[in-house]
């Protein structure tokens, strides 16, 4: 069973249109709370009850979400949303920005080897300017937004798979010869 505090948190999450942070919950409840723990307990309860909803840790807060097994029905309700996927160039650009932020457009271009268009990503509120670079030209610096985290289901930017992990996967294939060479 859920305690009154749990139920208040549940109500807060239900009424919010974006992730609720520990700070926001504290202000609403007028007392110190450990939102992560409460959310964990509510999720356990949901699990027991086989509830179609759960609370996801997103962008530094928590949000009520439907479970993935109900997606077939819900996606029919949001027909056009289901088809909206980012293009390959957009994802490439996003990954560079996500890992290297803050980063200038010139840096992005030189990594991709092509000219990059950032406007669509800004319009989708996935990236934003984060000031200007020091030095000549004072180029604009870009970084990811909180919506980026929500879009990719991340609690913080640190939850992105480490570039080292990706490198390891990469080195598993052609990298063997490199290791062999090093051993030799």
């Amino acid at each position: 069973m859920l305690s009154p505090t749990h139920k208040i948190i549940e109500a807060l999450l239900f009424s919010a249109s974006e992730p609720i942070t520990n700070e926001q919950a504290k202000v609403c409840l007028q007392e110190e709370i450990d939102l992560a723990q409460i959310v964990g307990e509510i999720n356990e309860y949901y699990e027991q009850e086989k509830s179609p909803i759960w609370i996801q840790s997103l962008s530094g807060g928590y949000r009520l979400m439907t479970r993935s097994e109900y997606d077939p029905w819900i996606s029919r309700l949001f027909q056009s949303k289901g088809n909206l996927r980012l293009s390959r160039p957009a994802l490439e650009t996003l990954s560079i920005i996500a890992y290297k932020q803050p980063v200038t457009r010139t840096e992005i271009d030189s990594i991709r080897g092509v000219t990059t268009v950032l406007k669509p990503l800004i319009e989708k509120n996935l990236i934003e300017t984060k000031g200007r670079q020091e030095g000549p030209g004072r180029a604009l610096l870009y970084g990811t937004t909180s919506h980026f985290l929500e879009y990719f289901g991340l609690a913080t930017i640190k939850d992105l798979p480490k570039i080292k992990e990706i490198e390891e996967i990469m080195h598993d294939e052609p990298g063997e010869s490199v290791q062999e060479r090093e051993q030799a």
Partner: protein
Amino acid sequence: MSYHVKLDVFEGPLDLLLFFIKRDEINIYDIPISYITSEYLQYLELMKSMNLQLAGEFIYMASLLMRIKAQMLLPHDINENLEEIEDPRTELVQMLVEYQQYKMASETLRNLEENQQHYHPVSADPETPSIDPDLFLWNVNLMDLGVMFHKLIETLPKPTYYEVDQIRMSIGQQIRFIHSLFGEKSRLRFFEIAKQLKNRVEVVVTFLAILEMVKSEVVHVSQKDIYGDIWLSKIKTKVQDAVANA
């Protein structure tokens, strides 16, 4: 016999080079530059022959590849100090490795994106106003349609002139018309009479005719409730006079 040409879409020259490297299982740190240059140039020729516009970046990479190839072919001066001479491929390899890193990272993002799209937030997301417009019709009732129609009418430009028709109907005519309707009946309903009239003016004239008949005590009117139907009852003795007076 049919001949199929399949062209993969490459994001740029680095993407294309990585494709060759993967396809031919080439070690990225030891690229056979002569081979890969000829593969690359062949692909550019293919693109040209299909009238595909080549982006400047592809041309630039071609020149870079040929420069590296030339540098590799040139005999190295044997360095007096036997210092290791930098491999001319180093810069290209670094570019490829870095690009591949982010390309793989973008595939990770793709997975995250796909995964997250299976979850839906509990409240309507204002950032995705993407519901099929047809679905909105589910919640529409007749009242909404009526209100919408009314609003639509109001937005139409107001007519700036009115046509005035001559009224081709007189009160006398309508008194005779009502008498003809009575026939053998002793009572008539006003709504019944009005049904046979074409427009508002005719209704008004007919109503005036009834008032005239009431005044001359030809008929008696009664109504059960407000806005209800009006009953006309004939007062027999005066009928002839009223017709005569009209």
